[in-house]
């Protein structure tokens, strides 16, 4: 029998950090805009799968609040002086906040040759942007915790302000790579400037975390390694924003690792394989921020509705455009098996 009890009950989840702290109107509006686009993107991807225009959907509806803030607060750029991103396939809102385009995510969904992330080779949400240090997102849910060690090492030596950001889910933290990340990030001889994020939605496909995880907070595992740890409500953008900001400031200046666990919702289930139907029971960050903006008089529900419709129309145009674009030619299958030049080493 599946245990449906949340691992950490709503009462036990961290109260919103700095709940009295508010973002300026312009910043919260900006976050709201991005969150709306992120949600519309994911819902469009789901529809494309259902309509037979893509084989499989997986993504991050429910993570928009936290992930948008993550993308906005990060230092985007190429090379060691900027942040490295080792994200998961629920990170579409982070991509948009970094400046990524929805149409490119649609292209990946439709596996067109114009998909700039993988040229029609990978699932949706498996982004890759070398110009922004966004390391290719993978289907294995844990490997990023091991690979991130290396960029963290390089940045520890480099000094400066660049940090390594690695993000996975609660289920993935059970893998050995998460333990590897904790061990290597906290070596006394060379602590690493790594922001280690666990996006805890309390589920691994159909398996509740409550039946599998004995630790109350996954982030507590960092304490055994002498790491600073934090938890936050990932459904509220202001709470998430201030928590991420505090965590990033610490990692950037102290050049030491920090584990940040955010609690958030999984609003359309695991993927298209589980139906991808909206989950009414979980808090929806889009509705929560809309209520907040309306209450503050910063953006009414009517304005949100109009904005959403306008963005949806834009998304539809991008979608139509993508359907006209070609798939990769079969002759490309051997392309990029081996590199002729050292692109990451700076060879043009």
């Amino acid at each position, binding site marked *: 029998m599946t245990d449906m009890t949340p691992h950490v009950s709503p009462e036990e989840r961290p109260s919103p950090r700095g709940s009295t702290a508010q973002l300026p109107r312009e910043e919260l509006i900006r976050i709201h805009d991005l969150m709306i686009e992120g949600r519309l993107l994911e819902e469009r991807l789901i529809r494309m799968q259902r309509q037979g225009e893509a*084989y*499989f959907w*997986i993504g991050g509806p429910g993570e928009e609040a936290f992930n948008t803030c993550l993308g906005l607060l990060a230092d985007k750029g190429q090379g*060691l002086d900027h942040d*490295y991103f080792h994200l998961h*396939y629920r990170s579409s809102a982070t991509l948009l906040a970094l400046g990524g385009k929805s149409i490119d995510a649609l292209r990946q969904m439709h596996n067109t040759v114009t*998909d*700039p*992330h*993988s*040229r029609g*080779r*990978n699932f949706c949400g498996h982004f*890759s942007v*070398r110009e922004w240090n966004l*390391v*290719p997102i*993978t*289907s*294995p*849910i844990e*490997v990023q*915790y*091991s*690979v*991130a*060690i*290396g*960029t*963290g*090492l*390089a*940045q520890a030596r480099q000094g400066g302000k660049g940090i*390594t950001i690695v993000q996975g889910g609660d*289920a*993935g933290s059970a893998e*050995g*790579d998460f333990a*590897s990340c904790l061990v*290597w990030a906290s*070596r006394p001889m060379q602590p690493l400037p790594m922001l280690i994020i666990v996006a805890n939605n309390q*589920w691994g*496909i159909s398996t509740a975390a409550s039946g599998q995880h004995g630790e109350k907070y996954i982030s507590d595992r960092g304490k055994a390694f002498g790491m600073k740890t934090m938890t936050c409500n990932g459904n509220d953008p202001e709470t998430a924003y201030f928590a991420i900001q505090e965590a990033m400031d610490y990692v950037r200046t102290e050049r030491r690792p920090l584990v940040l666990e955010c609690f958030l919702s999984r609003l359309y289930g*695991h*993927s*298209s*394989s589980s139906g991808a139907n909206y989950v009414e029971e979980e808090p929806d960050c889009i509705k929560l921020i809309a209520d907040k903006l309306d209450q503050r008089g910063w953006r009414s529900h009517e304005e949100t509705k109009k904005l959403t419709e306008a963005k949806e129309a834009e998304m539809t145009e991008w979608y139509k455009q993508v359907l006209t674009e070609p798939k990769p030619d079969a002759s490309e299958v051997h*392309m*990029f*098996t*081996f*590199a*002729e*030049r*050292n*692109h*990451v*080493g*700076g*060879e043009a």
Partner: protein
Amino acid sequence: MATIAQAVRMALHMGEAHLGVTDVFGEDVGPPLGGVFTATQGLKTAWNTPLDERGIIGAAMGLALAGCNPVCEIQFCDYAFNTIDLLKLCGNTFWASAGQWNVPMTMMTPVGAGIHGSLYHSHSFDGQATRIPGWKIVMPSNPRDAYGMLLTAMADPNPVMVLLPKALMRAKAEAPYEVIPGEPDDARELRKRIDAPIGDRTGWVPDWPDTELDMIAFGKARTLREGTDLTVVTYGRLARVAMRVADQLTDEGISAEIIDLRSLHPYDWDAIVASTRKTGRVLFLNEDTEVTNFGEHLIRRCCDELFGELRVAPRLHAGEHVPGVGLAETLEYASVPTADSVRKAIVELAEAPEVGRSMRDQPRIVRRQPTIDVTIDARELQASVLSEYAFGGRHR
């Protein structure tokens, strides 16, 4: 005259000095030990890691992606099995990102039997390694090749796996072409200059000889010995075994051509074709377990492309498909090829009655055009399959 361990050490030094190598790391790789085979002593960038193979491969990948040039070591390949999915990821990163992220890293690991290493210090890795596309894979059989191919690995923009036959780590050059350009002739002098002293090593600095930055290209086999009766395609530890056996068999009237493949991916198919065409008899020889062995792939290609030119069926002599290499000498020798078993395999191949015949003169089968439309709508088929079997995978 260097051993393979010393050759590796000198190549790594050259990598640090001339090829931008930033890190040489792994378990016990740094001081004071400098590697369980001493192959990393005295290096400026060598450092020790936690005992965590997944962390080692992941760290190497991350360093490479960050623009560094790392060389990592898995202490014995037997402990690389828990890194397989990271090795797969490493091999597919350039491809999956459509040419954005190459992964310029070198992984080296000792492989194979021959040191009475029991179950977890005797395994081979060429079978596994050649199943992971996106990697270049080499296995030297002498100090010169170890030196030259490791240099090439460190200069390559792709992930390269250098499989080092552990039983040969103390082996020295046995032919002029196995000598490293610029190395001292006197083995004692070289030891004195680059081997860490016994006891306190604090303050010790190696006196590196002035070896040349002379790389060996991947994908080029070496014909160790020319012959006319049969071809043996091998690599690593068994290259030397095959040479000794072939020398002995000359007196018995068998002329064996020995090819040291050296590079498993890319591999020198042209060399195999040329020799096999000449002799019509070919034996693939390695010590990995025989089921889905790399040699089986080469046999398949021989059958596909050289069938009409073979005098007898191509053969494989490899390790037994047993769960481990036993500690007792009797068990080890019954698990992997030995000089005796290699000799037997060569003699049997040489004496096998000729059964092949040229297909070139046989009447060809002429295929008729189908009378009904058998075109399958792949998209329709895919949709029907997906609707029956919802995609699961490892997504959570």
